[in-house]
């Protein structure tokens, strides 16, 4: 037992363990200064919401106010641990900046009003447009941060009630590729792996996944394995020198945009050395021959040239994969937000398939999520897909959903795949969408090419509704702003990246007039008087538990089966992994055991797509290719990136995140410890490149692309040569500009390109051609964290990132 500065030590104290042993418990507790556990009035069960890991925690309440958090020792995900964002982030709930009243635009300004006025404006405009222009003039854009009950209700309202095909979540920016890659390989979304695979794996391969910063507790688990007997070997693919790269046996730092070339070379080596589990492949997969043909010419020398990675490193990486006995593969934004996103992520699935390493302890794939509830956005259909992983191209499944909702099948749009976000923005731009209802996300900072996005969202003819907890950059552009309650102020469930469902209890009342998102959606549905085919109210519930029961009925029999779960079952102990039903009453640790998949033509969520063109595979084709519902080994050719470096723009710019912030900092920027750890934007460049220019740590640089410019202080870091990195968290709400730049650009997305993966439709944030110039010489170092991938190169004189007494956290080892 002791205290530790968790800003300086983001992963806390090591608790080493060996292969297959239980991960020791370490309970992390943080309370407001001066308080001890004895001062707490009550604890309320929940889980973490500033990343996708889903760590179980309890919320401490004193005098009706949230005063701290404590990890849940019994939870399967974290065994008591919490990350820095969770330990300090709860304070954002209590921020004085919270929205406490609805706002409406009058004479160009947002003014306070009551719920009646605000909601009748929203409902009236919806009804007007439905009459004048029909459902395709209405769009919904939600998040990966609401609760399951809220997404399912929204999907029902939008698809079953209003009948629009324009529904998406910001999961499109985040993990649409995770879903797409799983659909391509296994016929359905759903993570094959489990976090416990870390306990058993002998090789862990992380592709574009800086887990040390995005899921700190999962990295603690890996660090504890690395500190114990028989540590796993690590393969890291990342253009930056991340903490994962530091710990890796092999680190590949490819040129941004070349992931498919890299993967094809690794697969080439696996095939050429015959590290293939032929029995597994023959029995449980289709498509091996096409893959072998595709990668036959992709040798390591070919890839070394394209990726700018030493051929011997590629060979060493392939050897790690090929000789692994228990291989865990994980993937995140370095693949998902880069060129040929789905094609690259699918090749990772192919590695595990070729090696026959699925559905056994230590043998798994985690196509990771970024946000806490992204899995629910996808399951419930708030990303536009049909709820319960139903296949929009399968009429029987559409009919089944219509049965659950008691509507006519024709009411549910399924004539083409759902409209993805970037296409929705295009429809807003061309004026065919006139009403956009944004909940819990901030497109005015998080979408590519912000100059364009601000123009699109500021149009007079667009009626923009923003439901949020703070007056975000996007909210400042809205016609109506609806103040929402957040985590700790409402009840609901959510599911992490290894299918673990947690219940999150209401601990305190929301501030002022703020309401739970569910209550706002229910109010909206009531005002629109949405009815089923018998004239009864379409939405039959009025509270979270009712919505959850509705979802259980909808998910029953589908891969993401929740029918065996109840709120009371989720109370008290650990989170539970779906599918959870009569057959698996305690949930399911690993799916795809014994090579059984959900890919039968009648059952699968998707027939797949062409990885280059994005064209959906026709049902007949799929039935011919995969009649028996095996895994699909899908090959892809490498295509050169769409915006290569040029004489004018010689660098490749990649954007990303830091450990201390989440998304556009709406919460973390209002938390003193987190904000102090990473207070402002920076730009990373290699020592080699900065030496060529004669620039030093802290110099003020201007980085530009064909879209715009951003000013930031230089951090000379371990990033690969010819590559620049900008964190995307920093927008304008805490600058004079408010919703956009007053003078200088600060948001990384001023620079990014409007282009997306043809298959997952995920925008590409990680490969834009850029130039950089120096504006002024340093008056001190940049303020990038020194504990993470932005660590300065050796010899630089930069003060260490420390939180001091304000960041003290209690650790209890058991």
């Amino acid at each position, binding site marked *: 037992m002791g205290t530790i500065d968790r800003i300086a030590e983001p992963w806390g104290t090591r608790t080493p363990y060996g292969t297959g042993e239980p991960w020791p418990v370490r309970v992390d507790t943080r309370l407001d200064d001066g308080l001890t556990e004895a001062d707490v009035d009550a604890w309320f069960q929940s889980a973490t919401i500033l990343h996708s890991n889903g760590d179980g925690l309890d919320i401490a309440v004193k005098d009706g106010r949230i005063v701290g958090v404590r990890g849940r020792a019994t939870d399967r995900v974290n065994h008591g641990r919490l990350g820095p964002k969770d330990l300090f982030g709860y304070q954002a709930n209590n921020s004085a900046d919270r929205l406490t009243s609805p706002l409406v635009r009058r004479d160009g300004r947002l003014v306070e009003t009551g719920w009646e006025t605000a909601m009748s404006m929203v409902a009236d405009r919806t009804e007007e447009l439905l009459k*004048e*222009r*029909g459902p*395709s*003039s209405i769009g919904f854009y939600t998040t990966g941060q609401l609760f399951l009950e809220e997404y399912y209700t929204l999907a029902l309202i939008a698809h079953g009630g209003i009948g629009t*095909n324009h529904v998406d979540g910001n999961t499109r920016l985040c993990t649409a590729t995770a879903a797409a890659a799983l659909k391509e390989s296994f016929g359905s979304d759903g993570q094959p792996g489990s976090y416990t695979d870390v306990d058993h794996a002998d090789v862990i391969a992380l592709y574009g996944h800086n887990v040390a910063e995005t899921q700190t507790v999962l990295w603690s688990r890996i660090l504890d394995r690395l500190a114990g007997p028989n540590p796993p070997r690590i393969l890291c693919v990342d253009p930056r020198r991340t903490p994962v790269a530091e710990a890796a046996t092999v680190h590949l730092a490819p040129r941004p945009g070349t992931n498919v070339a890299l993967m094809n070379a690794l697969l080439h080596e696996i095939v050429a050395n015959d590290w293939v589990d032929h029995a597994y492949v023959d029995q449980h997969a289709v498509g091996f021959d096409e893959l072998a043909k595709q990668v036959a010419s992709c040798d390591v020398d070919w890839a070394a040239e394209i990726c700018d990675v030493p051929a011997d490193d590629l060979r060493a990486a392939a050897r790690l994969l090929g000789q692994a006995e228990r291989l865990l593969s994980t993937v995140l934004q370095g693949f998902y937000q880069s060129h040929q996103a789905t094609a690259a992520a699918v090749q990772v699935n192919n590695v595990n398939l070729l090696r026959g390493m699925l559905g056994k302890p230590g043998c798994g794939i985690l196509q990771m999520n970024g946000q806490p509830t992204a899995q629910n956005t996808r399951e419930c259909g708030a990303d536009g897909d049909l709820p319960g992983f139903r296949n929009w191209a399968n009429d029987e499944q559409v009919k089944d959903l219509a049965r659950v909702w008691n509507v006519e099948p024709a009411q549910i749009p399924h*004539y*083409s*795949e759902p*409209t993805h976000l*970037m*296409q929705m923005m*295009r*429809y807003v*731009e*061309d004026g*065919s969408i006139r009403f956009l209802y944004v909940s819990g996300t901030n497109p005015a900072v998080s979408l590519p090419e912000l100059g364009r996005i601000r123009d699109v969202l500021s149009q007079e003819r667009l009626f923009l509704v923003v439901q949020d907890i703070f007056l975000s950059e996007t909210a400042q552009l809205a016609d109506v702003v609806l103040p929402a309650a957040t985590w700790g102020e409402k009840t609901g469930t959510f599911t992490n990246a290894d299918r673990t469902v947690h219940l999150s209890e209401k601990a305190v009342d929301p501030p002022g007039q703020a309401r739970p998102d569910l209550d706002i959606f229910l109010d909206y549905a009531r005002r629109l008087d949405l009815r089923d085919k018998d004239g009864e109210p379409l939405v039959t519930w009025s509270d979270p538990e009712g919505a959850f029961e509705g979802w259980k009925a909808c998910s029953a029999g589908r891969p993401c089966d929740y029918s065996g779960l109840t709120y009371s079952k989720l109370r008290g102990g650990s989170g539970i992994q779906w599918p959870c039903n009569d057959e698996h009453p305690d949930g399911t640790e690993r799916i795809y055991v014994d090579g059984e998949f959900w890919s039968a033509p009648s059952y699968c969520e998707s027939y797949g797509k*062409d990885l*280059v*063109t*994005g*064209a*959906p595979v026709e049902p007949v084709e799929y039935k011919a290719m995969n009649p028996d519902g095996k895994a699909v080994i899908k090959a892809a050719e490498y*295509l050169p990136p*769409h915006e290569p470096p040029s004489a004018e723009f010689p660098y490749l710019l990649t954007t990303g995140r830091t450990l201390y912030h989440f998304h556009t900092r709406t919460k973390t920027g209002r938390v003193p410890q987190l904000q102090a750890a990473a207070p402002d934007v920076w730009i990373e460049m290699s020592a080699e490149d900065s030496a060529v220019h004669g620039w030093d740590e802290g110099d003020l640089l201007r980085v530009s692309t064909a879209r715009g410019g951003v000013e930031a202080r230089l951090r000379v870091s371990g990033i690969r040569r010819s590559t620049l990195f900008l964190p995307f968290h920093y927008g304008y709400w805490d600058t004079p500009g408010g919703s956009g730049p007053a003078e200088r650009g600060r948001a990384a997305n001023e620079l990014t390109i*409007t*282009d*997306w993966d*043809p298959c997952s439709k995920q925008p590409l944030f990680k490969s834009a051609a850029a130039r950089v110039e120096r504006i002024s010489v340093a008056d001190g170092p940049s303020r990038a964290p020194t504990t993470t991938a932005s660590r300065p190169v050796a010899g630089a004189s930069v003060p260490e990132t420390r939180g001091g007494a304000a960041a003290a956290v209690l650790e209890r080892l058991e």
Partner: protein
Amino acid sequence: MKNKVGLAIEELHRAESDLAAELLRASDRHKVGHDIFYLGHDLARWSEQHVHKLAEHGRNYGLDLDADDSGLMATIRRRGAELAGRRHDPGLLLLKDLREIHRQAAGVSLDWEILAQTAQALKDEGLLRLSQECHPQTLRQLRWANASLKTNAAQIMVTP
């Protein structure tokens, strides 16, 4: 015999060149529809590669075909000029362009069928390999045009 095969290769060479031009032209015309823009370029590259390979193989049949894109550029300029001055609803124009790409790709696909059949009859293994390599990409271009049209049609048609 050789002459007829030469004619078929020449015809396919022209058709692939036209298809590449059509893809690039549609791509540039619908720059604001970003997927059409980028995919149009990616898919035109396949046709350009086919043009190159056909020119190479055409030599076996005494043909002297352009292997590079100089002919292609001329086609684009010519087509571009044809269009000058026309005005369309941009959405409808997109549907029309996708329809045209689909029509041309369907023609190219049939031309590859003809060549593949001919190659088998002549036991021209090089020509057979060529069509086996290229034809699947034509089919993917075709499916893309179809899928893209399907995705866009409803919104374009029902919007007042």
